[in-house]
C-alpha cells in the first residue's frame, strides 16, 4: 500500500436525504500510483464525482477510508488542485487575480506568485487576457484559467470533475490535447472524471469503469498506447479496441443498449 499514492479502501458513501438514505457509492477499492493519469468513466449518478470529493476530503466517507500520499484523508486536503465542470471563477477578479486567489487563500503574498501565474497563463494561451474579467471570456478560456488556478500551487494531485463537459466539441478536443501536454510536462497524478469513453481512452493510463448506482467499479482497463496520443494514435485500431472493451462493460450493465 505504501507505494500507492492514492489508496481508496472499501469506501462507501451514503447520503442522508429527506426521502431517506441514498446509497451513492461503493464499496469501492482503488489504487493509484504517483504520476498516473487515471480516468473514471461512468453514467450519470454513478458516484464518480462523489469519489473525487471523497479523495479530496471535501466529503466524508460513510465507511472505509482514503489514504493520500501515505496520510489518511480526514478533512479537506490542501495538497490537491481541483477543476470542476463549471470554471467557478471569482467574478470580481480578473484572470490573473483568479489564478492568484489559490495562493492568497493559502496565506501567501500574491506578488511572489505572479511570475508563476503568468507563466501558467502563457502555457494555456491566456497571457494577453490576464486583466480581463471572467464575463469577458468564453467557456473554454474560463476553464483554462481554472486549470491554471488548480496548478499554481504545484499540487502533487490534480482532481478534475468533467472539466470539459460544458464546452463545445471543438474546444473540448483542443483542451484534451492541451491537458495531456500539461500533464506530460508536470508529471502530476491526475484523477479525471468523465462520461466520455473516447476521452478517457485518449487521456488516461488507466480507465476505471463504473456501473450505475450504487457506484461500483466494474473494471479497470490499462491503456497501453504511445504518448502523446496524437490523431494517428486515436485513429489506430488499438484505440478503438479499448473503446469497444469499455463500451462492452456498459452494454453488459445496461448503461448502453445495442
Amino acid at each position, binding site marked *: 500500500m505504501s507505494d500507492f499514492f492514492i489508496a481508496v479502501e472499501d469506501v462507501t458513501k451514503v447520503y442522508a436525504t429527506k426521502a431517506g438514505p441514498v446509497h451513492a457509492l461503493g464499496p469501492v477499492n482503488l489504487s493509484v500510483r504517483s504520476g498516473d493519469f487515471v480516468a473514471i468513466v461512468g453514467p450519470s449518478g454513478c458516484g464518480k464525482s462523489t469519489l473525487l470529493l471523497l479523495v*479530496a476530503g*471535501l466529503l466524508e466517507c460513510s465507511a472505509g477510508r482514503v489514504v493520500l500520499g501515505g496520510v489518511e484523508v480526514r478533512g479537506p486536503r490542501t495538497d490537491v488542485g481541483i477543476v470542476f*465542470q463549471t470554471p467557478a471563477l471569482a*467574478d470580481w477578479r480578473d484572470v490573473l487575480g483568479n489564478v492568484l486567489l489559490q495562493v492568497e*487563500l493559502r496565506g501567501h503574498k500574491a506578488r511572489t506568485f505572479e511570475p508563476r501565474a503568468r507563466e501558467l497563463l502563457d502555457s494555456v494561451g491566456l497571457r494577453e487576457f490576464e486583466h480581463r474579467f471572467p464575463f469577458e471570456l468564453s467557456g473554454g478560456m474560463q476553464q483554462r484559467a481554472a486549470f491554471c*488556478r488548480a496548478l499554481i500551487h504545484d499540487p502533487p494531485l490534480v482532481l478534475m470533475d468533467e472539466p470539459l463537459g460544458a464546452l463545445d466539441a471543438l474546444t473540448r478536443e483542443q483542451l484534451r490535447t492541451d491537458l495531456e501536454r500539461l500533464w506530460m510536462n508536470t508529471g502530476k497524478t491526475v484523477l479525471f472524471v468523465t462520461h466520455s469513453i473516447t476521452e478517457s481512452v485518449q487521456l488516461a493510463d488507466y480507465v476505471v469503469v463504473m456501473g450505475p448506482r450504487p457506484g461500483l467499479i466494474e473494471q479497470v482497463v490499462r491503456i497501453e498506447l504511445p504518448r502523446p496520443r496524437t490523431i494517428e494514435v486515436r485513429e489506430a485500431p488499438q484505440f478503438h479496441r479499448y473503446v469497444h472493451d469499455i463500451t462492452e462493460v456498459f452494454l453488459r450493465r445496461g448503461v448502453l443498449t445495442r
Partner: protein
Amino acid sequence: MFWRHRWVALGGATAMGVIVFLLLWELILNVLHVPRYVLPPPSAIFRQFQRHFSLIWRYTLVTEAEVLVGYAVAIALGVPLAAFIAFSKFLERTLYPSTVALEMVPKIAFAPLFVTWFGFSFLPKIIIVMLITFFPIILNGILAFRSLIPELFYFSRSTGAGPWMMFWKVRAPAALPQLFVGLKIAATNAAVGAVIAEWIGGDAGLGYYLQISAGNMWTDLSFGIIVLLSVLGLALYYAVSVAERKLIPWHVSQRVLQARS
C-alpha cells in the same frame, strides 16, 4: 457629437421630458381654470419654495438626517447580523424566526409607542426609519451570504483557508450584488419611514410640515413638499446605485447589453 455620448443623451432626454411635462401642466391648468387648492401649477409651487425657503431648507435637513442615520444604523446592524445568521445553524434557528416574526408586525403601529417612550425627539424617528429599512437589508443579506456556488465553496475549502480568509476574499465579494438589492429596496422605503414618524410624533421636518400644510389646504406648498420628498428618496437611491457601480462594476447588472439597435 456631444450628444452621442450615452449618458449625456439620456440626461438631456430626461431633462427635456421634465421641462415639457411642467410646461404642459402649467398650460392645461390655466386653460381649464382648475382651482388652486385642487391642483396647483408649477409656478405656484415654485413661488412657495421662494417664500418659505429657509424653513423648507431647515426641515429638509431634519428629515434627511433622520433618513441617513436610520439607514446607516440599519446597514450597520443588518449586514453583520445577516452574515452571522447565514453562517451559523444555531443563530439561524434562534434569531431568524424572530426577525421574520418582527417583519410581520406593522412597524408603523409602534410609532405612537415610541413617542410615549422617547417623546418628540430625534430618537424615535431614527428607530422607525431603522425598522423599516432593516428588513430588506437583512433578508437580502442572508440570501446574499448563502449564494456561494458550491464549486467555489469546494475550491476555497481545498485551499485550507480559514473562516476569516474565506469571508473577506470569497464570501463577501460574492455577496455584494444581492446585498445591494436589499440596500436599494431599503433606500426607497427610508424616506417614507421618516415622513410617517414625523406625522405621528414630530415637531420638525418635511413630514411634519406636510401635515400642517395639508391640514391648512395649502395645496401648492404640499405639492412642493411632496416633490422635495421624492427628490430625497431618489437621491438616496441614486447614491446607492453609484456606490454599486463603483463596487461591483464586474456584475451582470452593471453591464449594458452591447447590441446594435
